[in-house]
């Protein structure tokens, strides 16, 4: 069928089953927007900034498991999208981002709104394309979706010059993709898996180290079943919260810089790490030479480059974590003795009793941790929780009772402030029946605060719970601990009128100064059906604990901070 390049873009989006596209028009992408205007097969949501468009597509992808799609124009439209691409890249989120580009004849001439999009995005995309001919366009679009969602997922950029979206060509959308240079391996090597199983059977203190890959691979059920069968305890990374389920007795806790005492001690004392879709991030390992000194390591990862990147691995298994765990379960079923690890489980239980995750509550001032716990009590497993980056993110990860994968959405790898609100919009659009809460701070929320307008326009009732300590809290915490309280540029005492700000943009706002007010405001916010700010005044100087100081050994945690 003959059609324009712009029509081809829309046809591909429809063929891929995409229901919602997030974007922002501009000169070089106008041909495509003209076609979007003419069709009804998918919805377009106009964010108020290109960065937010990509984060929204990202939140949509993380919460639904589908590929997220964002569309931006050339030059500044694209450069605004780069933070979104890098965020998705670090967390392996499947996105297709379509950017307009100046016409082919102008490329390389410093044309108006020209920037080298493929050059800039190369290190922060899984793959990218500059379309040079209309004949290539259908194949490239097909490949983009395929590459984004297959193997280790990631964002793919398709940069399309304006003359190509305007040109007429033959459109046959390919049925399948044939990329001889790209063949992801899903099935692990059976011999390697067998060796790993033998190691598990021999170990005395094995530990499941559950990472974000288990979410991406939809492997949570299989991992829970494996843990249940073998009775091997598990720690979760920040990206894996919800995989084991908060009430799972085998879940020791979150591991890493702000992980629980028991989880970090488990990692330090285990004799066999079973890494499931995790990548030994520096925020997890702490000082490498002290990390898991007594452990052999089974590393299951779909990306071979992750294996052996940070630590030496004894049992490397390249494959999809869900597929490999299913195979391991089958091999170990008849042979495992769950009692074998009971002493180990008891040790970890004692560690947890010794220093449980907690905080000192107060009657005078709202503790941020209390807010998270209260949210958990009120909303539990139903809500989707997104977050920005900083103290509030860690408290949410520590204290919210996540029950299922894809319930917790945050920028773990890149640590992008301003991610949470647009991601929440994307998550709500993808899950209209779920309550979506963005746990944020008074620093983060102002990055992408313009999305109040988007959420109000489209009636996306996302609730932003601002843990307001009038500080850039995490940086302030480091300044307290490591910079002799020189609070350089972290005091955010000058603040907007949050209630008025939300209302000015078509939303609703609530100031919360007591626990009672919090419950009332949350009820009112949910009932309002509007995008909301819950401005919660919390203890200014509360710290996130435990804390492994950067570069320190995982077992050397600061458990409390006493004023000298």
């Amino acid at each position, binding site marked *: 069928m003959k059609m324009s390049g712009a029509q081809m873009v829309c046809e591909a989006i429809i063929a891929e089953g995409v229901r919602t596209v997030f974007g922002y028009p501009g000169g070089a992408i106008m041909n495509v927007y003209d076609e979007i205007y003419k069709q009804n097969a998918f919805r377009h949501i106009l964010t108020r900034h290109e960065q937010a468009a990509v984060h929204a597509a990202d939140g949509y992808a993380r919460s639904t498991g589908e590929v997220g799609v964002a569309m931006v124009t050339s030059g500044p439209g694209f450069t605004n999208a780069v933070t979104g691409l890098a965020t998705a890249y670090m967390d392996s989120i499947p996105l297709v981002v379509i950017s307009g580009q100046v016409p082919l004849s102008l490329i390389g001439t410093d044309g108006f709104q020209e920037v080298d999009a493929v050059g800039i995005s190369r290190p922060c995309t899984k793959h990218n394309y500059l379309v040079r001919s209309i004949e290539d366009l259908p194949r490239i679009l097909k490949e983009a979706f395929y590459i984004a969602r297959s193997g280790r997922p990631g964002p793919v950029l398709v940069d399309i010059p304006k003359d190509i979206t305007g040109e007429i060509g033959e459109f046959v959308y390919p049925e399948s993709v044939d990329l001889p240079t790209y063949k992801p391996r899903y099935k692990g090597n059976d011999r390697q898996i067998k060796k790993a199983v033998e190691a598990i059977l021999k170990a005395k203190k094995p530990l499941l180290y559950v990472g974000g890959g288990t979410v991406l691979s939809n492997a949570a059920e299989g991992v829970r079943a494996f843990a249940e069968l073998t009775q091997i305890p598990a720690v979760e990374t920040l990206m894996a919260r919800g995989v084991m389920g908060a009430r799972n007795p085998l879940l020791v806790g979150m591991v890493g810089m702000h992980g629980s005492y028991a989880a970090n001690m488990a990692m330090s004392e285990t004799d066999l790490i079973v890494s499931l879709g995790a990548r030994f991030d520096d925020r997890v390992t702490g000082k490498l030479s002290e990390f898991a000194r007594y452990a052999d390591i089974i590393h299951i990862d779909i990306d071979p480059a992750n294996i*052996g990147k940070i630590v030496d691995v004894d049992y490397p298994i390249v494959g999809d974590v869900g597929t490999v765990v299913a195979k391991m379960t089958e091999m170990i079923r008849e042979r495992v003795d769950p009692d074998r690890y009971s002493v180990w489980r008891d040790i970890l239980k004692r560690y947890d009793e010794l220093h449980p995750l907690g905080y000192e509550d107060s009657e005078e001032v709202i503790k941020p941790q209390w807010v998270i716990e209260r949210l958990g009590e009120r909303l539990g497993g139903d809500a989707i929780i997104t977050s920005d980056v900083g103290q509030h993110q860690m408290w949410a990860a520590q204290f919210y009772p996540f029950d299922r994968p894809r319930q917790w959405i945050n920028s773990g790898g890149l640590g992008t402030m301003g991610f949470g609100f647009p991601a929440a919009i994307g998550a709500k659009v993808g899950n209209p029946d779920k309550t979506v809460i963005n746990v944020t701070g008074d620093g983060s929320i102002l990055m992408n605060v313009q999305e109040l307008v988007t959420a109000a326009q489209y009636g996306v009732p996302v609730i932003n719970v601002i843990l307001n300590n009038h500080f850039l809290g995490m940086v302030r915490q480091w300044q307290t601990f490591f910079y002799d309280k020189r609070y350089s540029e972290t005091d955010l005492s000058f603040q907007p009128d949050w209630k008025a700000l939300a209302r000015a943009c078509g939303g609703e706002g609530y100031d919360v100064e007591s626990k009672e007010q919090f419950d009332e405001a949350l009820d009112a916010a949910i009932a309002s059906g509007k995008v909301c700010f819950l401005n919660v005044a919390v203890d200014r100087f509360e710290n996130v604990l435990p804390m492994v100081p950067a570069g320190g050994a995982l077992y050397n945690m600061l458990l409390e901070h006493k004023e000298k």
Partner: protein
Amino acid sequence: MEKVRRVISVIVANEAQVLARVSGLFAGRGYNIDSLTVAPIPDTQLSHMTIVTHGNRRVIEQIVKQLHKLIPAFKVIEHEQMVEKEMVLIKFPIESPIADIQALCTAYNGGIVNVGTDMLIAMAADEQQRIAHFIEAAKRYHPIEIVRSGVVAMER
């Protein structure tokens, strides 16, 4: 960890950006490139890149894996049993002792390839280490310009 020299061949789709993807990978992840050559493989849509690099074992392993991960990378060969050659062109003033230079070139699989009114150009093709020796020896004849090609390699 001990640093080693490695010669790596990468067979890539012969398409736009592919050289930038490879060189960008080295730059972005802080790997070393000692030399890099690239040319199309006859009668295919592929190109052959030969990269000489050095680093410790973990770095070399990562380089190979990261190269593999590039979507247009078809094959990555970490050479062990290989034939490797590098070519060098050296320009000398015309007053130089031509017979001596000719003899030197012969010892390193080369010869005099061009003679002009005020200069001559000599060539040698040999293993990288021997090319270094050749350049060392050629220095006594006051070369005007030296151009090395970088290594190409083939697994035996």
